[in-house]
């Protein structure tokens, strides 16, 4: 356990350094960052003064070191547009994104797992065929387009649900559904394949032979085995959910970090974009750590210390 934890922490630090380098370089990727900070008609001496003010006259490693020292203290500079610390803005918006991602994971688990177990236990039936087809389409849909279609149908035509913003709990329905469609399709297909494979194994035949009813066979044996790959894939998908939430938040004007980042991009507000990337990158690393810990609980065979 101890060695495993040390390994994870060293990995985590490596990733955080990589994130910080990427975030630092973002501002230099766009060319001379001074262009973003000064008006187009600025005089050369003004440009030089701004360059010194922001420390942009020093060498790149020196600038990175300075950036890192501030970042560790949570200081990522001030947003050009909002005139507030970028970090504060991001942390304010983080709960909305977390809520949206959690809602999407919730839909995925409550729909995908039972559905996968159900059709996995009757592979080859008409129900299996239909659900497999539908989930195949689910994993092929662009999420922003699905969001636009749902708005067209449920908000514009039927007037059942709100299309944008976050004023009541009804506002989360359409964005959460949109964000969850891909993962729901994926998990359903995965659980189906797992259950189908597990049901052919000897220990399931033994369980049936000793008179265990089908419900218990599915619940205790098939489902538990399917959970491991489900957790793995859900863990990997959390990254896609974060990436996807930028798009979905844009479609539904959801006030989370993704939308904040897009606002930052549109107004060339690079401190803001930097802060979002850094916070989301760090959050993603922590989530991965939690997923790894979950395996220990789910699969007693996995022991990270014995070379595994």
């Amino acid at each position, binding site marked *: 356990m101890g060695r495993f934890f040390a390994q994870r922490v060293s*990995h985590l630090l*490596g*990733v955080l350094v*990589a*994130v910080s380098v*990427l975030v630092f370089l*973002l*501002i230099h*990727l*766009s060319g001379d960052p001074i262009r973003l900070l000064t008006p187009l008609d600025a005089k050369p001496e003004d440009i030089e003064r701004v360059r010194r003010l922001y420390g942009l006259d020093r060498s790149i490693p020196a600038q990175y070191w300075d950036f890192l020292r501030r970042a560790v203290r949570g200081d990522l500079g001030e947003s050009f547009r909002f005139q507030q610390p970028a970090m504060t803005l991001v942390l304010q918006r983080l709960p909305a994104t977390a809520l949206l991602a959690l809602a999407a994971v919730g839909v995925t688990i409550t729909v995908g797992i039972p559905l996968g177990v159900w059709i996995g236990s009757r592979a080859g039936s008409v129900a299996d065929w239909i659900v497999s087809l539908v989930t*195949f*389409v689910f*994993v*092929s*849909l*662009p*999420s*922003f*387009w*699905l969001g*636009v*279609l749902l*708005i*067209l149908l449920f908000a*514009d035509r039927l007037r059942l649900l709100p299309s944008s913003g976050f004023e009541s709990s009804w506002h989360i329905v359409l964005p959460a559904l949109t964000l969850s469609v891909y993962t729901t399709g*994926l998990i359903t*297909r*995965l659980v189906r*394949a797992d259950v189908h494979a597990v049901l052919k194994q000897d220990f399931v035949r033994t369980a049936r032979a000793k008179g265990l009813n089908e419900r218990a066979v599915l619940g205790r044996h098939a489902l538990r085995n399917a959970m491991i*790959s489900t957790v*793995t*894939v859900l863990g*990997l*998908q*959390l*990254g*896609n959910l*974060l*990436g*996807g939430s*930028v*798009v979905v938040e*844009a479609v539904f004007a959801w006030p989370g970090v993704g939308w904040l*980042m*897009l606002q930052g*991009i*549109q107004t060339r507000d*690079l401190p803001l*974009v930097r802060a*979002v*990337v850094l916070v*989301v*990158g760090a959050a*993603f*690393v922590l989530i*991965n750590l939690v997923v790894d810990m979950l395996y220990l609980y789910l699969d007693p065979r996995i022991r990270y210390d014995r070379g595994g």
Partner: protein
Amino acid sequence: MTAAVDAGLAPSPARPRQRRPLQFHVGMAIVVGVVLIAVFAPYLTHHGYADQDLIKSLQPPAWRSGDWSYPLGADRLGRDVLSRLMYGARVSMAVAVLSVLLGGGLGTALGLIGGYFGGWPDRVIGRLIDIQLSFPPVFIAIAIMAALGQSLPKLVLVLAFVTWVQYARIARANALSVREREFVQAARALGAAEVRIVLRHVLPSILPPLLVVGAVNMSNVILAEAALSYLGLGVQPPTPAWGSMVSEGRSVQSIAWWNTVFPGTAIALLVIGANLLSDGLQRER
């Protein structure tokens, strides 16, 4: 996606050639169809993608307007939706094919070097793979595209940069196990140069699983390109891309649904084709 893919990805001994599953053929037909439309777009339609005719602004599809010179209707500027879809296929296919080739080439090369030669290059490459797998790819692509500025070559580069690690991971793992196999040992015993062993013996035997990764990545890259275009971070107007067509159509979606529904359908159809293709390839193995 990754775990599902991994299942069939160990190098397998040569088996007698089986008939390819139906999915493979349907998927191939869709993808090849889109490629043909992209290549021959100028011959398939007499409208240019930027030809405006304001009188035709927001004209409905032909079955409602009776005007078959605009089969799928027109957009706000009176541009033919079908023609723009055909030209838009060029962006989707160019980005998909080029970034899969570039990302796949880079990833395979690095994975092969790491897995076959071992030592410090492997430690560095392995560490890089580990670190990059901890990044959410689409999210990073959005951030980099925003900073770099938008153009087709930049789009291809960025998508290759966020996907190379998928190939590198599989190439490295397979090269590690192939290195110990008899035919590689035999080649070495015969005194073949290392470069020759890698290119003539190791690479061909790890290629099939990499093809599957490529097919899976193709659908991911098409979706990523569409999303970036939708956000305005892809190819810039007036060049049509399916994703940007959906976002342009949003401002008029309540009165002109054909501006959002058709481009989205085109993306979904192409992704379905790519997914069928990769599904078929995985089942074949």
